[in-house]
């Protein structure tokens, strides 16, 4: 886990965050909205080792906490994404390398996007937040997961290329 790679991942995530807030959030997706940012973050977490996944998860969560429209306490997404980073890395070690199984990666990322929203809501409920009725929460979480499943085959190959560029020759081996 090189500091330079963490910094480049953080800069890349911030760029995606700006795209999400300025453009993707404007589109009225049917069923529920789509978060490009969460999909990209899940994709990055799925490709990293345990320490890097936890660190990138935390940084990604802090960036998401910066969203001006969010009503949750600052740090809630950081907590959720740190946990997600650990869950991803731990499961990835048991599943194995995703590079030979792209379909598994797409499913893993979509499931991760849905689970991260549900963990965020659960933590919010513990902190006394009101996020609407159960049906709406379920629709939003599953709708986002569905859109992530549809768009991930386009996004993940690009993400994989970005990661290859950010790796040193030693890390590639």
């Amino acid at each position, binding site marked *: 886990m090189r500091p330079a790679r963490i910094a480049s991942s953080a800069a890349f995530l911030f760029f995606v965050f700006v795209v999400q807030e300025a453009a993707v959030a404007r589109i009225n997706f049917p069923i*529920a909205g789509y978060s490009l940012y969460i999909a990209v973050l899940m994709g990055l977490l799925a490709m990293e080792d345990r320490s890097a996944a936890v660190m990138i998860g935390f940084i990604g969560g802090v960036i*998401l906490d910066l969203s001006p429209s*969010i009503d949750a*306490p600052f*740090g809630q997404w950081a*907590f959720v994404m740190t946990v997600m980073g650990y869950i991803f890395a731990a499961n990835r070690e048991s599943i194995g390398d995703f590079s030979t199984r792209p379909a598994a990666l797409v499913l893993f990322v979509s499931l991760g996007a849905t689970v991260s929203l549900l963990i965020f809501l659960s933590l919010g409920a513990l902190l006394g937040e009101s996020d609407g*009725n159960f049906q709406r929460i379920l629709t939003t979480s599953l709708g986002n997961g569905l859109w992530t499943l549809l768009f991930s085959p386009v996004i993940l190959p690009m993400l994989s290329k970005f990661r290859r560029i950010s790796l040193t020759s030693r890390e590639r081996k």
Partner: protein
Amino acid sequence: MAQGGNNRSRLLLVILLVTSLFLITLDLRGVSLTQSSRSATQSFLAPIQRVASSAFSPISHFFSDVKNFGKTKAQLKDVQAANSKLRAQIILNKNAEGQLLQLKSALNLAGRGGYKVVAARVIGRGSVSTFTQTITIDAGSSDGITKDMTVISGAGLVGVVKSVTSNSAIVLLMSDPSFRVGVRIARTQSAGVLLGQGDSSYTMQLLDPAGTIKVGDVLVSLGSENNRPFVPGIPVGRVTSVDHTSASLTQQATVIGLTNLSNLEIVSVIIKPATADPRDGLVPTPIPTVTVFVTPAPVVFPSGSPSGLPSPTPSPSQVKK
């Protein structure tokens, strides 16, 4: 070696989780650092959102347009012929015409209520990851907007200003599950509370146990102390169904919002309320139904009629429309 790596990552996990909890605690205790970081992000994003709003405006309603395509397909052939003549006119700034209509409508409502308003364009929407229903507008504190001001459209209430920077503001939409507004039934003056449900429908809880709600009743805002966050008299919604459950102490009703929050382009922020409460002066009046009476005109038959009596059914050319 691997064990050492695992221990290191677990230690990192614990440190980061504790840091996250520390940040949450700071935020819940109202430390301004976390609030100002979001304000700074909003100031940074507002110019980008403004540019993206112009670029993405045609495709932001892409999916809803596709969804409605099937419904309009049958009518498409009939419309195509007439459409070709009008295309030249429509192609010129169709988007701007829609925005102008919304602006005129919003200013009309503000004018009737006697409110001093600032018109603003919607430049962003809350992301799905925030689980809040918000919009970002391109007017801020430099235009006189402050926190907790009422936001309206041409049809009625939109929401309330949640946070402000110098050139933008975030508006909490009335559809947000955390949104609560005191309302009054225009017909009976009974007061209640309207709760956001996350979509276009709302729940109204009547405060008066003896009060009555009827389907079709229009609700207007009750108003807040010093007109913050809500000015009185703004149309809010219309009752679509009433819950007559005897178990509940007060009556509940399902309400549909008067403003379509999904395609907002222009809104108005009330920066100075009216000197007097408009009461029910802003309640939308139903358009009277036009009833057409058809009176068959007596028909005089030529001598060829066998009975010499007029036909009971008039010919189409004789029906007065």
